[in-house]
């Protein structure tokens, strides 16, 4: 405690030379910038990660079971069978069958290619959060009859609606390839009626996804699937999205004897490259910024070496009072540790201000078509922040260890003789 007190006094002595004050301030500032940079970067990358995850999960089942079907009619019995098997493995699981394929949407103003998801409108709301994301109009009505002469109800993403210039009640042409068109080269065209517009906040979905009821599947893609269009799936919703990989393994084992099941995968596998890229980016940025903190710590080394050179007589005098080499080492480490702690606290305060600006004011807007999000996200847990601060402090202590060790090796008689 005495060494920490003395270290504090040495750092904050009001009559320290200006150059020394500047050097101390520079050390603190450089560590502060490194720590703030690391915290903000981690916060933003984590924010991207969790924001994208939550937006994907808003519209995505946790586990996907892919079915190999040659006829649309086989979907219902296959779905029943798979659902029973999944329910046996996890009584809490909710399932919904769907088909998905690419279509072209054409309005009076523009065209847009997108993925069309034909869903069981009732069951889908138990598996994804689509109903809560409707911003205009309404979600599909499950009992909606789809006679050949009526328009197919369709729910579009906000960006897709904007791109095609349609709104609630407008008609659009749904153009898909189908095997019962007169010639294979000719696409099948159906009329859709915009029933609702959703906004997930995830640009990929908002610009490239639309929903119709499962009963419209034949009208859009013909009687049988062609070249994998559409593909058939059962989506499953588990209690916790984070457990999806484990549930996928369990479901896969349970569905081993289902001949129509071709694969089972968690939602994270479908977005693997995106999350891998985010993780790699996080690691690389953290490494680079940690190097900045390390380099900043070198300024602590130079400060301590300067202090050691200036204070040799003081160190000799302290040793003559009975302080041991370990006490001298502790004193120098205390000076380094205090400089580091002040830099780290300043950095944490700067990061908190940045976090407030990013998170609470939403001042920093992003081009959504590039970054998939409209605002810069920020998500940093206390545990992550504490880990970064502790690691940064350990780096500064490690940097202080070298000069502290050198100073503690000085022989008292040599110090007192030659100063």
């Amino acid at each position, binding site marked *: 405690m*005495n060494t920490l007190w*003395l270290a504090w006094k040495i750092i904050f*002595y009001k*009559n320290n030379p200006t150059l020394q004050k500047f050097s101390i301030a520079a050390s603190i500032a450089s560590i502060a910038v490194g720590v703030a940079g690391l915290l903000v970067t981690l916060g933003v990358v984590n924010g991207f990660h969790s924001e994208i995850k939550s937006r994907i999960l808003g519209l995505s089942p946790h586990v996907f079971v892919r079915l190999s079907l040659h006829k649309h009619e086989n979907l219902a019995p296959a779905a029943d069978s798979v659902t029973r098997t999944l329910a046996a493995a996890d009584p809490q699981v909710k399932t919904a069958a769907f088909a998905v394929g690419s279509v072209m949407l054409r309005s009076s103003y523009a065209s847009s290619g997108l993925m069309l998801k034909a869903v069981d409108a009732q069951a889908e709301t138990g598996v994804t959060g689509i109903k809560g994301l409707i911003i205009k109009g309404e979600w599909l009505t499950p009992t909606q009859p789809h006679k050949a002469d009526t328009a197919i109800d369709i729910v579009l993403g906000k960006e897709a609606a904007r791109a095609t210039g349609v709104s609630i009640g407008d008609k659009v042409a749904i153009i898909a390839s189908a095997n019962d068109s007169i010639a294979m080269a000719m696409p099948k065209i159906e009329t859709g009626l915009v029933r609702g517009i959703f906004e997930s906040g995830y640009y990929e979905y908002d610009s490239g996804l639309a929903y119709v009821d499962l009963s419209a599947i034949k009208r859009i893609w013909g009687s049988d699937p062609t070249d994998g269009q559409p593909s058939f799936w059962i989506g499953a919703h588990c209690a916790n999205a984070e457990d999806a990989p484990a549930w996928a393994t369990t479901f896969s084992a349970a569905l081993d004897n289902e001949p129509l099941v071709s694969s089972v995968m968690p939602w994270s596998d479908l977005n693997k490259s995106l999350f891998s890229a985010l993780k790699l980016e996080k690691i690389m940025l953290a490494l680079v910024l940690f190097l900045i903190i390390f380099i900043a710590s070198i300024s602590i080394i130079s400060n301590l070496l300067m202090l050691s050179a200036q204070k040799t007589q003081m160190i000799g005098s*302290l040793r*003559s009072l009975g*302080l041991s080499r370990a006490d001298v080492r502790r004193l120098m480490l205390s000076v380094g540790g205090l400089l580091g702690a002040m830099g780290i606290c300043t950095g944490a305060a700067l990061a908190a201000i940045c976090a407030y600006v990013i998170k609470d004011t939403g001042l920093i807007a992003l081009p959504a078509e590039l970054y998939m999000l409209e605002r810069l996200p920020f998500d940093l847990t206390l545990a992550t922040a504490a880990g970064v601060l502790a690691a940064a402090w350990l780096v500064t202590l490690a940097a202080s260890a070298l000069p502290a060790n050198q100073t503690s090796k000085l*022989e008292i*008689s040599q110090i007192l003789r030659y100063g």
Partner: protein
Amino acid sequence: MDRPLLRASPEAQHDAAPVALLRASGIYKSYTAPDGDAIDVLRGVDLELTAGSIVAIIGPSGSGKSTLLHILGLMAGPDSGEITLDGETINDMPEARRDDLRRRKIGFLFQFNSLIDELTVEENLCFVERIKSGTKSTSVQARERLHARARSLDITGCLNLYPRQLSSGQATRANIVKCLCGDPRIILMDEPTGNLDAKNAKQVIMEVKRIVEAGSQRSSVLLVTHNLEIAAQADRVYALDQGILLEKRPMKGG
């Protein structure tokens, strides 16, 4: 006449009553010069400090006075010879134990101002008191004792000043109070009055004598000085010349 000492205190050997606090026997110390030659600084020095005594060592610059003080203060080891402190042989003692002995039993006064620049005089004295007592805070009694010593050496008005704000005389007196912190049994003083005028020097050394004699510890003082008037205040005076310690007599009565 000066005579070399085989045992520096032959009277003490004849008189069984005084207890030897610090005894140095056959101390040799040499340094290697930049050109590689060995310089013999101390050549077979014998010295004994008994409880309650004041011993002065005089000698020209470079005669090895400071080296002898550092060795006796357990801050450097001799090349050969034996040192005992309170009956314990120091030579083979681990460094940590020597540090502890120095903390508990030895007080130093250096030629230079050894107060820490960043602390006020009072903070300096309290800090040393805490080191010497091994406590984390200064007790009320210790603080009162420090204030009493500051009064007796006339530095009460300087307690809230920083060392750079002191005159050289005030700094010397503050360093003397610092050296007496923790009531050390052995007080080693290197030119204690170098920065004081004759009157103040004598007053300071008388005060040191008074404090030593009044203390419950029956401390011993070994002082190195150029000032023969100061040396005359000692019970015994030695001269160190070319590494050999000689007793000078009679000196008492100045």
